[in-house]
C-alpha cells in the first residue's frame, strides 16, 4: 500500500522537518506537535496562537 495513513504520514514528516531544520523557536514546534496530537492543525486561530506564542529572543531579533 503506497499511502498507508497518508494524513499521519504527512503530519509526521512535517513535524520532523520543523524540528530538524530548526528554523522555528522550540516552543512553536512544540505547539505544532500539540495541535497535531489534538487533531487541531486545521484550526486557523489555533495555528495563529502557536505562531505568536514566543516573542523574539534578542539573538533572533538581531538576526532578523
Amino acid at each position: 500500500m503506497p499511502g498507508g495513513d497518508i494524513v499521519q504520514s504527512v503530519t509526521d514528516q512535517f513535524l520532523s522537518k520543523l524540528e530538524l531544520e530548526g528554523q522555528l523557536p522550540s516552543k512553536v514546534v512544540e505547539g505544532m506537535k500539540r495541535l497535531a496530537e489534538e487533531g487541531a492543525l486545521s484550526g486557523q486561530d489555533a495555528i495563529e496562537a502557536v505562531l505568536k506564542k514566543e516573542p523574539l529572543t534578542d539573538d533572533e531579533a538581531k538576526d532578523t
Partner: protein
Amino acid sequence: MMKLKTLEIKALRGVRDWEIPLSGRSLVLWGENASGKSSVVDALEFFFTGAIRHLVGTMGLSVVRHAPHVELGGEKLRVSVTFDPGAVTLWRSLESQPAVPAVLQPLWNDACSGAFILRRSQLLEFIYADPADRFRAIASMIGAEPLDDVELAMMRARDRFEGERSAEKSERERIEKRLQEVVGAGPSIDLLNREVLALGLLPLSSLDAVPSKVEEWLRSAKQSDQARVASLQKLKTSAEQATVPSDLEKDLLKYADAHSKLLAQRERLDRLPELALLEHGERLIQVSGLPQCPLCEQAIDPQDTLTRIRARRRVLHALSDEVSDLHQKRATLLASLKTLEQRVSDMQEALPVIPDKDRPAVQKAVQEFRSRCNDALGAIESSADFTSQCDVQPLVAGTPAYLAVCSKLVKDADEQQQALALTERDRAILSLAQKANDVAALTRQLDQQTTKLRQAEELRRAQYVFDTFVSCAKAEIRRVYDAIQADVRRFYDILHPGELHKDFQLVLAEGRRASTQLRINAFGQPDEDPRGFTSEGHLDSLGLCIFLAFVRNFRAACPLVVLDDVVMSIDSGHRGRVAELLLTEFQNWQLIITTHDEIWLDELERHQRAYHAEGRFFNLRIHRWTLGEGPAVYLYKPRWERIQSKLDEADKTGAANDGRQFLEWILMEICTSTGAHGPIRRNGRYIVSDLQEPARARLGRLLPQLRSEIDKLFQEIAAAGAPGNLLSHENVDARSISIPEIRRFCDAVKALADWYQCGCCGQTPVYSPDAGQICCPNQSCKSRKRWSTA
C-alpha cells in the same frame, strides 16, 4: 481475507426480500433496466456507508424517504451481511448501524467511505472534472481530505499576518514620502547640513542633536520677534501637515459601506464560530460513518448531512474571507486616523499665536473636527463587533470646512511672518529650525516602523510553516501518484494493447493548491490532456483503470470492488479485455458486477472458463421484476445451454433468435480476430449477411489446407439458415418451421463455433501475421488451438 458470505436485502429500493448466497465468490448480475440489479449496489453502499450516493445532494431526495421499498416502508428496511471466515453477521437499518467487531475493523475502515463502488455516471465525471474537483475525488479515495483543510488553515493564518504587515508597510511608505517632501531625497542629515552651512551655522552631528542645535540657531535670529516668528512657523507647518490625506474620505466611505453590508448578514456572522464545529462534525461523521448526529444523537443520513455541512462550510468560509478583508482595511484606517488625530492635536498646540479676535472660532472648528476624528476612530474600532453601523459620515461631512480652516491658517501665518519684517536670513533660520524638527520627528517614526517591520516574525513563521507543510503533502501525494501510475499504465495496456496512447500520468499542478491534471502520450505527443485525443470509450476505460488502480492500492483491507454498469461506452472487443483485466489482476478480490449488456455477460462467463475461475463466480440473470415480488432470478447459463433449454421447451422463436445471435457473434469474432474485410456500418451493428461471406473467404485464404472443412461448415449453416431468418423477423411462414429444423440450424452454428474456438479454454483464436498462425491468445491455456496460415 475477509469476504462476503451472504448478502440479505430487505425492503430496500426494488427489493422486498432477497438473500444472495455469495460464499466469498464474485457476483455477476445481469438484468434489463429497472430490473432491480442496481438495488444490490445500493444495498451494499447503504450497508457500509449508511448512504446511497444518488439519493443525496439533490433537493427533494433522501435515503430516509427514498431508500425503503415503496410498499414496505422504512421500518422494514434492513441489509445484513455475513462475512467469512468467522461467519460474522452485521446489519444496518435506518435506525441502527452495524456494531463492527475488531476483527472487521480494518475492512470497515476502508469500506465505510464507499470508495470501492464505481458507477457508470462517475467515470466521465472524474475524467471531465476540473483539476480541483479531481483532486478532491482522489483525496477522498486515498483519505487525504484532511490535508487540504490543514493547508487552507495555514494559508489563512499566513494571509492574516501578511495583511497586518501590509498595513505597517503602507504606513512606513507614507512616512518616507513625507520625509522626502520635507527634506528631499537622500540622507536627511546631509541635506539639512547643506542648508545649515549655507546660513553660516554650526552643522548637526546627528538628528539626536536637533533640539539643542535649533535652540542655538534661533538665538542667532532676530531676538525681539524670535518667539512669535517661531510660533507662526510652527502653526504654518502643523497646519500644512494636519490636512486630510486625499484617499482617506473615499476609504472611510468604502469601509462603512462594506461593514454595513456585512452587518446586514448579522445572523450569518454570528454563525462564523460554527466553522470549527462543522469541520470537527464533518470529520467525525466521515470517520465514524455513524447515522447519528454527533451532538444530539438524532438519526441522520450521513451522506446527506456531509453534503449539507460542506455547503455551509463553503458559505461560511466566503463570509469569513470578507470579514478578514474588512479587518485588514480597519487596521489601515485606524493607523491613518490616529496619525491625523495626532497632527490635529499638534496643530491645536500652535493655535495660541493666532490673534485673540480670531482664535476662539478657529479653536472651535479645529476641536470639532478633532472630536469627529475621535468619534470615527471609536466607531471604526467598535465596528469589529458588528453590533451597530459604523458611522463615519460626520467626519467626512466636516472635512471640507476643516480643510478650509487649515488652508486659511497657512495663509495667515505666512502673511503675519512677512509683516514682522524679518530679514531673509532670519526667515531662513526659522524655516530651517522647523524643518530640522520635522525631520527629526519623522525619522523617529520611520525607525519605529522599520523596527516593527523587521519584527514581522509571525509572518516569517507562518510562511515557513505553510511552505513546509505543502512541500511534505505534495511529496507524499506525488509518491502516491507515482505508485498508482504504474498500475494505471499496466491496466490501460491490457485494455488497449499496441494503441498509440500511453505513459499516463497524474500530475500535481505546481503553484496551485489542491489540483490534479491528467496527462498522456497521445500519438507520440507527450504531456497531452487525454480528453483532447481519445474517444469517450477510451476515456471511460481510462477512468476505470484509475479507479481500479486506486482501489487496489488503497483499499487492500476491503477486497471488494463494485462495478455498476461501467462498460456501456466500451466497444465489444475491449469489453473482453476488461474481463481479462478483472480476471487476471483481481483474482483475490470479490467483484460485484452488474450489467444489462448480454455480450459483456457472455464475455465474463467465457473468461471465467478461460482462466479456470468458474468456481470463484456466481452468475445470475434477473429475468423479471415486479413491485410485488422484486427481482426474479435464475442462474446464468452459457449461450448454448440457453438454446438447448429453449429447444427442449419448444420455444421456437426464442431458440431461433438465440441461434441467430450466436451466429452473428461467432462470425463477428472470426472477422475481428482474422482481420476480415467486410462492409462498414456506421452504427457498428452487423447482421449475418454482412459477415458470413467475409468470414468464410478470409478463413479460406488463411487456411487453404482446411478449405473443404471450412466450406462444409458454412454450407451447412446456409442450408439450415432459414429458421434463423424467418423466426427472428416475425415472418408468417415461420409457423410451418419445425423444432428439428431449428435444431439443425443451431447445431450448424455450434459446429462452426466449436471448430473455431479453443477447445481447451473457449477463447477465440487470433491471427498473427508475424507468427504466421491463428492461435488461442490465452497464455495460461493448457492446450492452445493453433493453425499455421498460408
